[in-house]
């Protein structure tokens, strides 16, 4: 909201858009029932956030009424449209939404008490009933949930009444306390490594969860940051953006140096668990960077990307392990990982050509389906009787040795720090390559093909070759990740390369922001690091049961609210929000009549 907008006086309490309130309320009720039946409250009840009052199980139900209670009162502020000051009306709207939502949970309590639907709904359990009724009888549960819903909705709505700064302080405090509580394992691990055990002991309760005084401490620090810290950060950002030419390049160099130094130094002080997480993040980052070239730059929706990961993993395993399938003639030696990698590059490139050549001429949606099929075919081939003698079939290839680095180190799973360094090295290469390619002639050609393939062809771009090249570059990057994966885990099985891997990488790329290297890095850290990969545990191991649900929800939310990804690049943002921009302009009467924005491409007949 701009400060210059003149606000009309607040509307009356009863001047509500009741239909919208009912919609929001029903949405809330539905979401709450869904969360409850997805077993989140029971499954996460043992995860104590604040000792002794709050578990993550309850939080899974409590955050939504607050959020929707607030968002019912927000309106899209378009310039030129009168907007009203916020008042009691928003609070009432929030409370009504919350009340309907609470009613949904109450209804669930009654149903749980009277019917047994355990057959279709596996989580329809007495535990759920007990949890929702607070171990205190059905009537109590019904009443309390109505009160909680209404109360939280009201609280959310009343967030409109306080000043923006206060709102920021409150939300930062809440998020910080929940964040610190949820990230307990990792934070106390880091604290130990940094000799800050005393701090962890102060904040965390012995048997898990944040203690009350710990929560207060965190809240105070977060509040202080919201008031002063974020201003400093913003200032720094603004002054960076004001830099020009040489100075800006220098600033960039400095920040790259800082990132590199942190990447090298941090793992030294971090513990095993953290390094293991970072190694997984790296493996998936490498995959995501490759897929980002294929999808983000060249616009090829490849859903079978896991195939190249599998080729890298299997090739490395077979070439380096003494325990490969028994159809191999004995004269084929076991080789050093680096030698195997050379062959991995060649084979991945060939696989890229082999899969790419037939599919690359297809249109987007067909291509997506066919690549999805190829991804599975590769996995099934490794599993099949036909190749089983070479790939070990369902037994896979085991005893894969680590990576010997000139007698200095043996990089394998038992030493996650070393794995991290190895994978970081390859990520650095991948980032550099992506960045150079993006700026190059071939990068231009990829973008042209992504934007409009037949016009790209008319410019003289050989679209088939250019797309194949993107496919092959992506394949090789994925195979690097596979090669490291095999050495890290020490074995490969067909089940390591299921479709879900492709989907997760795709989500990382989309959530991070397609075609945006920094965004892909952020996406990997947040999704893989915090939630975990398809089979790899993340920071929140308690969430692993709900990982896919959260991935899906996140994906939908991102597509709706932030299609440009976590770290937007300015250009994409402008394009994706252009509709809003045009609306604004139209409302201001700024589009000159007659000279309409030339967007006729879709409506014109061929």
């Amino acid at each position, binding site marked *: 909201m701009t400060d210059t907008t003149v606000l009309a006086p607040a509307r009356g309490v009863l001047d509500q858009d009741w239909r919208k309130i009912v919609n929001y309320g029903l949405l809330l009720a539905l979401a709450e029932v869904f969360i409850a039946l997805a077993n989140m409250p029971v499954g996460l009840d043992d995860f104590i956030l604040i000792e002794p009052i709050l578990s993550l199980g309850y939080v899974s139900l409590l955050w939504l009424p607050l959020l929707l209670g607030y968002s019912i009162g927000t309106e899209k502020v378009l310039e030129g449209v009168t907007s009203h000051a916020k008042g009691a009306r928003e609070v009432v709207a929030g409370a009504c939404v919350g009340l309907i939502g609470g009613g949904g949970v109450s209804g669930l309590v009654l149903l749980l008490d009277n019917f047994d639907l355990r057959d279709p709904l596996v989580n329809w359990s007495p535990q759920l009933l007990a949890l929702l009724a607070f171990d205190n009888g059905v009537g109590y549960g019904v009443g309390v949930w109505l009160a909680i819903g209404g109360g939280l909705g009201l609280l959310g709505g009343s967030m409109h009444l306080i000043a923006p700064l206060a709102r920021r302080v409150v939300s930062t405090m809440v998020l910080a306390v929940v964040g610190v509580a949820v990230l307990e394992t990792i934070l106390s691990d880091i604290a130990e490594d940094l000799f800050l055990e005393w701090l962890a002991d102060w904040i965390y309760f012995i048997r898990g969860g944040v203690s009350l005084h710990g929560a207060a401490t965190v809240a105070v620090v977060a509040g202080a940051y919201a008031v002063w810290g974020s201003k400093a950060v913003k200032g720094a950002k603004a002054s960076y953006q004001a830099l020009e030419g040489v100075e800006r390049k220098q600033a960039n160099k400095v920040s790259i140096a800082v990132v590199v130094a942190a990447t090298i130094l941090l793992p030294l002080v971090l513990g095993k668990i953290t390094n293991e997480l970072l190694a997984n993040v790296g493996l998936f980052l490498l995959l995501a960077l490759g897929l980002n070239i294929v999808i983000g730059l060249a616009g090829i929706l490849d859903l079978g990307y896991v195939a190249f990961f599998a080729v890298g993993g299997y090739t490395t395993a077979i070439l380096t392990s003494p325990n490969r399938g028994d159809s191999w003639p004995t004269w084929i030696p076991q080789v050093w990982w680096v030698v195997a990698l050379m062959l991995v590059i060649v084979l991945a490139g060939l696989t890229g050509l082999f899969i790419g050549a037939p599919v690359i001429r297809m249109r987007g949606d067909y291509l997506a389906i066919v690549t999805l099929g190829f991804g599975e075919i590769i996995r099934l081939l490794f599993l099949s009787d036909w190749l089983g003698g070479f790939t070990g079939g369902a037994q896979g290839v085991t005893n894969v040795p680590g990576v010997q680095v000139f007698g200095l180190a043996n990089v394998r799973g038992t030493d996650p720090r070393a794995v991290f360094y190895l994978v970081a090295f390859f990520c650095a290469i991948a980032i550099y390559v992506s960045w150079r390619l993006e700026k190059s002639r071939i990068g231009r050609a990829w973008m042209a093909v992504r934007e409009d393939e037949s*016009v790209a062809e008319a410019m003289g771009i050989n679209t088939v070759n250019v797309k194949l090249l993107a496919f092959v570059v992506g394949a090789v990057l994925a195979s690097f990740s596979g090669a490291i994966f095999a050495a890290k885990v020490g074995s490969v099985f067909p089940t390591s390369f299921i479709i879900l891997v492709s989907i997760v990488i795709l989500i990382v790329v989309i959530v991070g922001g397609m075609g945006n290297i920094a965004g892909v890095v952020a996406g990997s850290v947040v999704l893989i690091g915090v939630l975990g990969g398809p089979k790899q545990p993340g920071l929140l191991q308690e969430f692993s049961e709900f990982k896919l649900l959260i991935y899906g929800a996140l994906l939908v939310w991102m597509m709706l609210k932030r299609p440009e990804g976590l770290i937007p690049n300015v250009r994409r943002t402008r394009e994706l929000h252009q509709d809003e921009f045009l609306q604004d302009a139209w409302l201001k009467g700024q589009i000159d009549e007659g000279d*309409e924005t030339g967007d006729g491409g879709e409506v014109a007949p061929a």
Partner: protein
Amino acid sequence: MSDSPRSGATPLLEMRGVNTHYGAVHILKDVELSIYPGELVCLLGGNASGKSTTLKTLLGMVTPTSGDVVLDGEVVNGQPTSYLVERGVTMVPENRRLFKRLSVKENLELGAYLRTDKDGIQRDLERIYGLFPRVYERLAQKSGTLSGGEQQMVAMGRALMSNPRVLLMDEPSMGLAPALVQTNFQLIQQIHEEGVAIFMVEQNANMALSIADRGWVLQTGRVVLDDTADALLANPELRASYLGEA
């Protein structure tokens, strides 16, 4: 405009008895036409008569099932589009079709995709800035956010960046506001006067014929009229059926 360069010289680009199919559907039927160096000619025809297909066939994006496309006397059937672009044939596609998420500058540079002469590219960029000052003001802007008229300029600029000898234009006035159509035709003439041959596909027959040397009329993939622009303008048949006069 009657001093046609047709006498004697070899045509720059020709179609000789071309037939084209999309799958089993016969689109172009025995099409004959020729474009001479420095000419401004136009192809008229209603919706779905095969105008765009003609251009795509000339540029090698569609391969004829029989007959020849001939460039400088050489048969170029089956050659890739890049072969023709390198030799001076370029298209301004229907509806401009800019690379919307790329900047104006990037669009222009993509027009010169096949060129390696850095100095020449720079010179042509400046030529285009001179021709279209509006484009210069918006180099960093994303091309999808330009107005229709500006997009048309970028599309023409992008095509000129390949340093063409002949420009194939697919319905340049489609989707433009009436006031802009006039300006647009002036720009086309201006480019023509710099020595670039122009082969223009249009539904706006009156306007097109008023600046063209010669024209063809296409009806369901067959050339039904082939004459000088003046003669076509005077042709009662055309006036009745096509120029919308009773």
